[in-house]
């Protein structure tokens, strides 16, 4: 296999991280969605790059599917379903962790991810693709999780989840050059159905609870 140019790799990983930070800093649903879409496009490109260097035609298909499903279908579904939801529910006005602190923590998480990968996978002989993308994918995972933990709005959590999925996809592609295609399709289908179900739930939630604020969904607890 050919050795890819470091600058392409660095650029693409920077692009992914920037998109992720976009989700962290923005407050509105539209903002998150566009950042996510941007991230997915970069991700598909990155996958194509990996496919190219690893010489795996299957991975091109996976990249294409990702592009179609994640960058086109999913945002469209989300937009369609949330049309009826009042605009005020789509804004993260008062997160548990302030935006400014969130950015700091996200940066820390990125550093943590690099350290973690260094620590855990150092013994294994990682190729240059993996060394570049694996830390990025782990950061995506952690930041996604952090977004889900620190935000109150249900929509923001969906976006966090999608970021995690992107991280996962990148992780798969970088570390093992993707799973078997049928599995990838299965995973993508799961994600797609998941998002559809989530959006149905969101619209029901806004009807029943008249809000998407998670603080209202605390009735099921023990005390």
């Amino acid at each position, binding site marked *: 296999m050919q050795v890819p140019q470091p600058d392409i790799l660095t650029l693409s990983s920077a692009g992914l991280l920037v998109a992720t930070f976009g989700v962290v800093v923005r407050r509105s649903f539209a903002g998150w969605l566009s950042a996510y879409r941007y991230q997915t496009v970069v991700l598909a490109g990155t996958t194509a790059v990996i496919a190219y260097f690893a010489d795996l035609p299957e991975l091109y298909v996976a990249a294409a599917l990702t592009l179609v499903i994640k960058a086109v279908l999913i945002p469209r579904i989300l937009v369609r379903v949330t049309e009826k939801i009042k605009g005020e529910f789509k804004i993260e006005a008062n997160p548990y962790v302030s935006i400014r602190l969130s950015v700091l923590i996200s940066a820390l998480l990125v550093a943590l991810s690099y350290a973690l990968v260094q620590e855990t996978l150092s*013994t294994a002989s990682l190729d240059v693709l993996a060394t570049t993308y694996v830390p990025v994918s782990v950061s995506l995972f952690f930041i996604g999780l952090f977004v889900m933990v620190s935000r109150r709005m249900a929509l923001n959590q969906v976006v966090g989840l999608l970021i995690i999925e992107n991280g996962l996809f990148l992780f798969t592609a970088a570390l*093992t050059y993707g799973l078997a295609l049928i599995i990838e399709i299965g995973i993508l289908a799961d994600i797609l159905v998941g998002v559809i179900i989530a959006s149905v739930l969101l619209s029901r939630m806004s009807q029943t609870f008249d809000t998407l604020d998670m603080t209202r969904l605390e009735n*099921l607890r023990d005390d």
Partner: protein
Amino acid sequence: MVWWNPLANAAQPFLPTSSSGLIVSLLLTPAVGGLLVTLLRGKRASGVITVASTLLVLVQTLVLIGDIIAEKQLSAFGGLFYLDALGALILLPIAGVGFVSAIYSINYMGRQHERGLLDDKHITRYYQLFNAFMLTMLLVPVSNNMGLMWVAIEATTLVSVLLIMLYTKEGAIEAAWKYLIIATVGLSLALFGIVLFSYSEATAAPSSVSSAAASSLNWTYVSANAASLNPEVVKFAFIFVLIGFGTKAGLAPMHTWLPDAHSEAPTPVSALLSGVLLNCSIYAILRFDIVTSGTLGSAFSSQMLVILGAVSMGVAAASIYFAKDMKRMLAYSSVEHMGIITLGVGFGGFLGIFGALFQIINHAIAKSLMFFASGTISQKYDTKAISEIKGILKIMPVTGVVFLIGGLTIVGMPPFNIFAGEFLILTSGFSGGQFLAISLFLTFSVVIFAGLMKHLIPMVFGNPKGPGRETAIDANPKRDDMGWLAVVPMAALAAFLIMLGVYLPQPLETLIRDAVQVFNQG
């Protein structure tokens, strides 16, 4: 000796001849069932179709198990599907509880319909989803590929979220949302782990990079090559998998979605969720534990499993003790039992694994029985609050008795089956010298016993109507067990509880033994 031979012979004309074909037809059955429900749409018809499809699934499962006992392993569809004793063991509660649950559904959903809680459309959708749920669950133990298994487990989440969402009330939506979010996050962790596993092979054999993508995720391949995996990577992979599937299996402290989802789902689904679905995730953990033990030796994974198991029991004990809602209490009891099973696997040894696998079956029976009974009870009393329910025995004698038997079973009272399993697990813990874990086990089980008895006894005994208590029960309630379709499944399950407590049939014993063998070979 195959005691279901007559049954199998009767079904033979309708079944594919080859055993590996049977795996495919097993998966096709609920798919066809779901399709038929969609096409016919009748309320009555969908119920009957579902019962038929689950019955067919059960029959096929039993035949498959017979084959497994004889041939040890089967594979189909170019190695995509694979079944050995361990998988067959998981298949058994899926098919068994699925069938009983389908029968119970007719009565339960019928009554929900009568009371106007659900309309015709909901009923049809319920049965569609029920079949889909069966399909996704059946897919888990028969898939040879880790990735496929992951997809199947994720699919069970999605289908069960839809089942919970059948009701449009606030609690159901909240529970469904939490379930969806937490389970998905958990499962994505698991996928990280799976990828790491796959990577650990790639690093072990760099030449096979390209082929790694395809077959390397197969159990048959991984467990055969477990010793040659990269130990450092496997270690972290296992942690991801454990926490990921642990979330889905309801191990504390990742269990948080479980009481919500299990208590808000329609009762037959609660039974499936608690009795069967949790096992599927436990199965995944077991599989990865086999591989990890093959690579690292059993000490590492044991330690992790024991920690999670003990924590689960502790959290469950606390929550059961203070429970106010009947179904939530049962859900926490599931957390407890997943903890016990995990402890059994963690203790290891023949007895520990045997006990854990036995416990999987025991718990499936006991918990589905408990949920059925609680469903009937809550329909009668029109509440799930423990404090409002009194004197079940006086109103529903049969339900009261089976509820009591089930309750005593899940707290580990002999002569019921769970005691036998717990005893084996305790024994293995002692022979391993895990005294801290054992003392925690015993302490928590006493607390759970105290808590459950505190709630259960006043529910079952006493007078249904007391001073100052306003319930839906009128002054002179008729003794009524809500129809034979509700009673028969529970009575059958209760019979199994008692039988397995004192006597384990030979085929089942062989199956568990073979499954332990699978474990030890890995």
